[in-house]
């Protein structure tokens, strides 16, 4: 069973993608650390954490794609899982500061001393241990996604209503994390990190390592997603996306399939957030803002939803575009982003990947496939035929 899953994950496209990613995870640190400044291929120091940030964003877009592109659940709250993972990592990093903080308290982070905390709140226990923090990075988003998804999918909240309550969820978390008395640093969030696993987070080598770790995590996420969508379960997910009621009437447990996809997606988002925080050096409640979650949707849409590589391309391209744009014409970035939203939904519903694929398809009709969502939301189109009726597990 497991070997079968791995074998499925290693279909040709995923292998190519992972190989390229692993190459990148080696090449970028190499270009930054080893090549001399004079080399035309030398990468300046600021670029490494910047690229690392893009990679974590791409991972977040991939997570969203798993639920939106393959399962038809448009979550407008995925930034919440990302931020929760980030906070778990941030808590670990805060505990590593120790006596080097402004107030020099060996246990309490600076903001707690400032807010007159007498002792560490119970939910901060254990975060001085990296592996405990890593476990929380996975568990916290997973548990939230499980509870939320369990309630929502069981009650058959779908479509726009689901999107709106996911937005309400991230908004509620935004407000909660702004509160000082929640014990997560309030408005300022967690910052001023020193060490990760004993290495200085500011050091260039650490940053290169974090970049490599991000790319490797993305590769693992690609393999996981690829395994899921190529399995029978993946076919059922696509069936749910295209005709939920019909899939349910055929006897599939639609709620369970959706819940599974939602939880896996939340975990990927959480890991992405955990890798994001040490590279940008701060996590604050702004990460929970609903606008962030909506932006993730556009990365996925630009790249091409319903594909594995699409959201990665989208996440990298849009964010690189944002960095360039906000540097050169800061006042026009919102115009560009807004136009991107409108134009992509109007003219490129399948994104960049869909566009390229349609060019190929025109040349070679045999390569046409039906993994992409159709352009219309009509429900009375034929079901995907290769999913066999039976329990989804």
């Amino acid at each position: 069973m497991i070997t079968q899953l791995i074998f499925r994950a290693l279909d040709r496209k995923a292998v190519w993608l992972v190989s390229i990613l692993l190459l990148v995870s080696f090449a970028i640190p190499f270009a930054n650390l080893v090549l001399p400044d004079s080399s035309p291929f030398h990468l300046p120091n600021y670029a490494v954490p910047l690229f690392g940030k893009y990679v974590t964003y791409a991972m977040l877009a991939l997570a969203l794609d798993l639920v939106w592109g393959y399962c038809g659940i448009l979550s407008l709250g995925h930034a919440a899982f990302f931020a929760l993972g980030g906070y778990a990592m941030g808590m670990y990093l805060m505990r590593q500061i120790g006596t080097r903080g402004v107030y020099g308290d060996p246990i309490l982070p600076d903001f707690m001393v400032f807010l007159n905390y007498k002792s560490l709140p119970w939910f901060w226990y254990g975060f001085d241990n990296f592996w405990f923090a890593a476990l929380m990075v996975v568990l916290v988003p997973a548990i939230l996604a499980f509870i939320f998804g369990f309630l929502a999918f069981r009650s058959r909240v779908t479509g726009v209503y689901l999107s709106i309550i996911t937005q309400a969820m991230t908004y509620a978390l935004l407000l909660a994390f702004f509160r000082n008395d929640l014990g997560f640093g309030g408005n300022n969030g967690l910052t001023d990190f020193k060490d990760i696993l004993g290495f200085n987070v500011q050091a260039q080598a650490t940053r290169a390592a974090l970049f490599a770790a991000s790319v490797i995590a993305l590769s693992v996420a690609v393999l996981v997603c690829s395994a899921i969508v190529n399995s029978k379960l993946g076919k059922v997910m696509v069936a749910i996306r295209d005709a939920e009621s019909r899939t349910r009437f055929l006897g599939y447990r639609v709620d369970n399939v959706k819940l599974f996809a939602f939880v896996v997606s939340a975990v990927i988002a959480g890991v992405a957030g955990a890798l994001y925080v040490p590279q940008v050096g701060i996590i604050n409640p702004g990460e929970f803002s609903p606008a962030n979650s909506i932006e993730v949707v556009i990365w996925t849409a630009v790249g091409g939803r319903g594909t594995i590589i699409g959201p990665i391309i989208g996440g990298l391209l849009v964010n690189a575009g944002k960095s360039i744009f906000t540097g050169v014409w800061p006042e026009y970035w919102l115009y560009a982003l807004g136009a991107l939203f409108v134009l992509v939904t109007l003219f490129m519903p399948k994104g960049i990947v869909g566009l390229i694929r349609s060019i190929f398809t025109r040349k070679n009709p045999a390569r046409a496939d039906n993994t992409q969502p159709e352009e219309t939301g009509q429900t009375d189109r034929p079901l995907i035929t290769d999913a066999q009726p039976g329990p989804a597990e």
Partner: protein
Amino acid sequence: MFDELAHRLPNPPHKRDGVPRWTGNNRVKHTAQHLLPGGGDWERGRRTLGGFVLLMAFLTACLLIAVPPAMAQTADLPALVNALGQGGFPEREKAIDALVATSDVHVPAILQALSDGNLYTRKSDALVVLATKAGDAYALKDPVSGSALGTATSDDIEKIKVNNGLRGKIRTEIGEMTLLSTDRATRLSAAQSVLKTADPATLDLLKKALAAETDPQIKNVMELAEAVIILKTNASIDEKRAAIATVISHGDRDAQTVLLAALQTAPDELKPVIEDGLASISRSLQLWDIAQNLIYGTSLASVLLLAAIGLAITFGVMGVINMAHGEMVMLGAYVTFVVQNLIATYVPGLAEYAMAFSIPAAFLFTALVGVCIERGVIRWLYGRPLETLLATWGISLILQQAVRTIFGANNRLVAPPNWMTGAFELGGLTITWNRLWIVVFAVLVFTALQLVLNRTPLGLQMRAVTQNRRMASAMGIRTPFVDAMTFGLGSGVAGLAGVALTQIDNVSPGMGQNYIIDSFMVVVFGGVGNLWGTLIGAVSLGMANKFLEPYAGAVLAKIIILVLIILFIQRRPRGLFALKGRAIEQ
């Protein structure tokens, strides 16, 4: 309620609830403090006079604050003031009488300075000056205008002496000038400060003032003050009992504070009376609190209703979640701003009625923008509701940035017309006019929309399209036209909301974002079956929020409401008033 998005700290909601943008009082306060001769120097009064000096300083300060600076001084006031420096005590007494006879607003302050020993005669020209010690020298000021007159050494000036008889006279005169003043505001602030300090020395004066008082509000305050003073003195038990009854009959928060203080010092036989009184006051206060919460809730509900009702129309009829809805609200607010400025520039006489022009202008403009958006973007996306959400989000970003480019990122001020400023009191409640008008406006808009939907051909067509699009189309209804009109109507109503919100919120490019999530919550909670759902949604969310706020705080109240909505949607995935039947299922 949910009035913050994105990167900013969530403000306490309705931070200006009950407070107009700027009030006349604030302004006067600032200016008056500028004009105040000698600043707070009187407060450094002689301790021998004890609390009374403090009281009087307070009285005069209150007095000056309450008096508009526009009130001109009496022409011969400087001459009369200079007379204070001449002759001995009998002449001084006459000069004081003459000053009091002018009833000028500056007189109490000047007399207070005299009593405190801050008035001096300049030897060179016999001018009476207000002197404060600054190092070795004295800083001189004109006692009337407060303008600086340079400095002098102790040899140059001579203190105007007063004896205890004169001090007593001054005390009475100042008290009479304030408590017995002909100006209502002066009397009120004097009475309130007597209530705050409750100095037994003022009792006789207070009784005199009370006998002459006709204004019920001031009389109220004075009675309370009298009772408080009696409770402090060694009056007989019966007198005190009567005083306690007076306090209890007032039944407000001041009375509660007074009784709590009295409870500490009261003789044992009075304690049960006071405790009973406290209990009855807290009962009535609780009732007033509930009433006040109802009013806050209604006010919030009206804002939510205005913001959400346009969304309910577009979502209900077209299944489009219009993320640019908040920007329509924002455009409506900016139209109000532009119309106000145009009118102020070209027809200043109509400035008071700018609202009357803003309302149709905002409706038409935003409706036009809405129709353009529908024709340009949304009509290509029917049947893909999630993607309209993305496209309209893009539009909202563009609109925000466009407004930022044209008008700048700063907040714009829409000055409220006079009839919308200020507040009035109703029993223990304070109601601001702007909030009240917004409630009225929301009710009018709601009624008008109900009429449009139920009594016009367009409304009939909209309802037909809502219930069964294909059937309506088969019956010859031009569904694309209905869609465009519906979107225009929804956007226009959002514009109207923008007009109303200029009165309680800042007009800024990001203001729409503050309302979009609120609007969603209302619509999702109420369901899209009909507008009553939106009304009930707005009222329940508004009320729930305001009743939770006192216990949980503003932010936590919002969080609780959001979580409750999420849970509610589990029970009723299509809101309170869902359309039944196959047509609404995806």
